[in-house]
């Protein structure tokens, strides 16, 4: 006759199914990780990527050509405008940084002058006394 304690610790059929399933899933995951780490998969991925990129390029080029022939600004035109804006923004940023540096220098000089100006009358007072 089975010991009641061991019967209690035995997993139920439902739990057993779950454990079995999780074991199978873990093994599949490991196998798939080994597969994607193989040289063959790397080669396949490289080729697939190249083909997908080429297809998407053909598609976007055709779309752009249609727009251009209709006299509507295409993706390339908008991109060019965006790049010009980027360059302008770069110049403005550098200019702003230069202005801020000059402003900091000016503030330092002003502060220095103010300290000197405040120090002079004190000396004059001490001489009189």
């Amino acid at each position, binding site marked *: 006759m089975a010991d009641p304690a061991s019967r209690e610790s035995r997993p139920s059929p439902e739990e057993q199914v779950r454990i079995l399933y999780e074991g199978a899933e873990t093994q599949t995951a490991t196998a*798939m*990780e080994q597969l994607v780490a193989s040289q063959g998969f*790397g080669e396949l*991925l490289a080729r697939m990527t190249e083909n997908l990129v080429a297809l998407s390029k053909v598609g976007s080029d055709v779309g752009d050509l249609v727009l251009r022939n209709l006299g509507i600004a295409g993706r390339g035109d908008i991109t060019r405008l965006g790049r010009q804006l980027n360059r302008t923004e770069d110049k403005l940023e550098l200019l702003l940084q230069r202005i801020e540096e000059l402003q900091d220098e000016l503030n330092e000089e002003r502060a220095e002058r103010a300290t000197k100006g405040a120090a002079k009358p004190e000396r004059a007072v001490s001489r009189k006394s």
Partner: protein
Amino acid sequence: MSALGNIARLPASAIETANIMLTADDARIGTTPRDVVWTHRKTTLYRYRSNKRKHPVPILLVFALINRADIFDLRPGHSFVEYLLDDGFDVYLLDWGVPNDEDGETGLDYYVCDALPWGMREAQRSSGSVEVSLVGWCIGGALCAMHAGIEGSDSPARNLVLLTTPVDTSESLYTSWVGRESFDVDFIADSWPTVPGRAVDFANKLMKPVTNFWTTNRRLAQGVHDGTANREAHQAMAKWVADNPPFPGRAFREWVTWMYKQNQLVRGRMRLRGERVDLGRIEQNLLVVTAGADHITPPSNTVPLLHLVRSEDVTHFDRPGGHIGLMAGSRARKETWPDLADWLADRSGP
């Protein structure tokens, strides 16, 4: 519950699971109040103000180019930013934004030589501090390391914290995928002004296909069925994972070629705008954090950095968890954030 009861509850669980997955976009992420301090092109510098500020040196958070920086401030109650603010730090976040076709010519030099130093400059000006602490994660960490490798002690960074940062890619799975000769990165970068974020995300998920495409969803369904699923946590993470900004074409070409095809960073051969990126010039207090179960940047990709830098104060934490779980997982609040905050606090005094 009986087996029959379990089966009877399956339709309700399936509907609930589907609801969680389909309404993930409604999750609120990145909600801590913040001010915009500076913007340039698509880059934005945010400031999170602490009402308990006690550390004079502010922290500047820098994330990767392939996901949004919201991961630093994932959701109320589980946000690294929130944690740092509560710990008395003034926090800045450099968000690279969402590049468009016009940003296709943006290279790594823009991020390392322009955006990052300019962001640090703005953080210094607005905080009134002469120095900052740089905290970079993944590619963001590599960008911070490159910056410190060029500027050395001239950089205003006092502390450098690099989280799961790729430095030596010789043992990376990416190297066997994109580092091979047949992977024509020039063709991709010439054809696509920006590499779609979805494509990069798909490749990332393909590294652990069963776990990423199946197990995550199966575990959610099981959690819903058992009544243990955390709806908010799952949705916040799912929303963040699905938000993939495009990778600017030139930066993608440079990243793949220099990091994976030629492994230039660790060899000290990388040059940005004529300046050599020499990791031996890094003199900042350095904290390197690796994650034991990280398949994207395994510890072996980061550890070589420890032997290259000139810093006298070097610390290495090797924690359990994955690439993202390390900082955003359910255990991060107890197992990672306190150590990071303590390390920074000890080095952020006047």
